[in-house]
């Protein structure tokens, strides 16, 4: 059944080379845990991607109930967690995944650093990786405000104080991000929501695409 559909499409569009090019490549011996168990360290990049996929999926589903508004944000989160089937699971996936993605990314960074895999010709990929790290941190920061509970509010107030301490442009930067010079409120939550679900994911997708294209182009770094 599936094979027939595949053949029908392939006969017309010749899709086999497309996915072969993406998915079908040899794993070198030094990267294969079946040969050297210590090669499990090469999994962390893939695990970061896997957790990111879970974050994107669970986040998409959460927005079906979540309202980015000071009056309804907390109420809608309470509702989706306590009155919708599997709400606790889906929100839990997003909550724990947010921390897990940072952990996995950190381990991936350590591996690349201590193996010296960032060295020529892979410097550009290291730079893109660091940018992804910043985007992930920003996603964590903006997402933290969205449940609109006391922890979220005061964490964001601290964030604003940190931003304000930037030399020269601190005050403007704070207004730009919070939407107001003194209030963390209605304008802040809508801004953070927009940044969290549109701007940062867009940046993340572009950077991840660059990251993966580069690793395919250059191949994985050689054995130590």
């Amino acid at each position, binding site marked *: 059944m599936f094979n027939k559909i595949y053949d029908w499409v392939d006969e017309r569009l010749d899709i086999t080379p497309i996915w072969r090019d993406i998915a079908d490549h040899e794993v070198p011996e030094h990267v294969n845990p079946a040969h050297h168990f210590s090669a499990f360290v090469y999994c962390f990049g893939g695990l970061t991607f896997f957790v990111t996929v*879970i974050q994107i*999926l*669970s986040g998409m*589903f959460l927005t*079906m*109930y979540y*309202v980015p508004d000071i009056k*309804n944000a907390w*109420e*809608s989160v*309470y*509702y*989706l967690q306590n*009155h*919708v*089937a*599997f*709400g606790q*699971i*889906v929100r839990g*996936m997003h909550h724990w995944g947010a921390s897990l993605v940072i952990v996995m990314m950190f381990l991936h960074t350590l591996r690349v650093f201590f193996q010296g895999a960032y060295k020529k010709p892979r410097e550009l990929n290291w730079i893109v990786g660091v940018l992804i790290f910043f985007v992930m941190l920003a996603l964590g920061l903006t997402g933290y405000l969205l449940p609109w509970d006391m922890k979220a509010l005061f964490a964001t107030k601290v964030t604003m104080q940190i931003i304000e301490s930037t030399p020269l442009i601190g005050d403007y930067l704070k207004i730009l991000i919070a939407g107001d010079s003194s209030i963390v409120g209605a304008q802040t939550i809508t801004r953070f929501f927009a940044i969290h679900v549109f701007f940062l994911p867009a940046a993340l997708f572009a950077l991840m695409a660059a990251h993966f294209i580069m690793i395919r182009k250059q191949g994985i770094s050689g054995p130590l």
Partner: protein
Amino acid sequence: MSKNRVSRRQFLNYTLTGVGGFMAAGMLMPMVRFAVDPVLQAKGESDFIPTKQKIDEITTEPTRVDYTFEQVDAWYTSEESGTAWVYKDDKGEIVALSPVCKHLGCVVNWDSDKSNPDHFYCPCHGGLYKKDGMNVPGTPPIAPLDVFSFKEVDGFLYLGKAEPR
């Protein structure tokens, strides 16, 4: 050993697809169930809503009865209001009609059009209904006005859900 030997590649394909499918399902099942939850939520039996209309004060002339009720919309609870046209018919039976026009949903009034006295009249497109709620042929509405179920509690009128006839 059966005749169709499973090759190493086939075996790995099947097991990996199976394990992968199981993991993907474990991930997606909670999210899909989460998304379809409104469809599967149990419909609560609609309660009868109290009005300030006393049963023995209902006459044969349709009177406007306004009522308010608490509407729970997920995390948003609000006070909503509604209207019914209530009268006693020739047999002395109480009739409570929905004021929502069956043409495009405007609100009809009793006896408000001078050229058509003793009719329910819709100001939007001139829809007309007779006193029993039947639509007058040749005017826009295509169905009679909905009828409320009702009951009497301590001499007061309680309204249920408006159902189409």
